[in-house]
């Protein structure tokens, strides 16, 4: 760890039980415990959440924007992958 630069952490907040954790932003902290505390103070002080995940930013592998076409464009013309073509039974609420 650099002396004057704490590593960056990505913060995920679950807003209520049953929902998934959602990325809310990032912050600096010296270790995971401090990242949790900082996240509590920075991102949940207005009642935003019931659970926190923190992960050091360097451990996230991101897709390369220059490969965007190859990765994502092929899905453009495959509308049949959306479930809107199928008749849903009335009993199913949220799809």
């Amino acid at each position, binding site marked *: 760890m650099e002396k004057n630069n*704490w590593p960056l952490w990505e913060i995920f907040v679950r807003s209520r039980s049953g929902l998934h954790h959602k990325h809310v932003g990032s912050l600096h902290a010296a270790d995971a415990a401090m990242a949790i505390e900082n996240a509590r103070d920075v991102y949940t002080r207005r009642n935003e959440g019931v659970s926190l995940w923190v992960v050091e930013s360097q451990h996230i592998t991101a897709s390369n924007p220059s490969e965007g076409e190859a990765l994502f464009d092929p899905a453009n013309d495959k509308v049949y992958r959306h479930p809107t073509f199928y008749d849903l039974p009335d009993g199913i609420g949220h799809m």
Partner: protein
Amino acid sequence: MNPPTPLFSYILRQADNVLILGQRLSEWCGHGPILEQDIALTNFALDLIGQARSLYQYAAEVEGKGRSEDDLAYLRDGFDFYNVLLVELPKGDFGHTMTRQFFFDAYNYYFYQQLQKSSDPTLAAIAEKSIKEVTYHLRYSSEWMIRLGDGTEESHRRMQTAVDALWAYTGELYTPDAIDQELLAAGIAVDLGRLQQHWQQRVREILTAATLDIPTETWMQKGGKQGRHTEHLGYVLAEMQYLQRTYPNSEW
């Protein structure tokens, strides 16, 4: 004028503790070592000032002389404040602030823990609400004690200096006087003897983990609970009360 009742004084002591420490912590607003700690410290300041509000409201009600929470916070002079000396001392560096915070948080945690069982239902309710905040404060300041005490050579040195400088102000936290004893007998007040045991155990545990020496000095400062303060309180009050004194009855 009749002297204040023991209950009124007892409530004011804790109210003044948390108000003055909240005011001291708010000095870090915009000056924290990094953004995240800046926000954390001002969160704590607001937690403490919120606790002070509940206590002042109740104190005003107990007194029954038509004074409000604002009157109690902004229109009393230094000798009518009953906070312990520890909370009025200047903030010092971040390590000094954290050490003071840890000493006070450990007190505050065990204080509210016991106060939840007070025979006074309002005090018990305030304690029940406050202890959640204070549990987090204590966890936070404990971790900073360990992190900085067991950190670099410089952080260790600064933490030991702070511990040594503040130690003589910790005895007042758990030394009972006549008011404490009278209200303890009535089932209202916290048993400071028991609090002392818990406090010392927790402090020993954390300072040991932080590789810091526990001072052997046993002479302790006192006087705050009786209204005898250090010179520092006057400066805190001057800043805190300036607006209300200069523009009486002004409101947000």
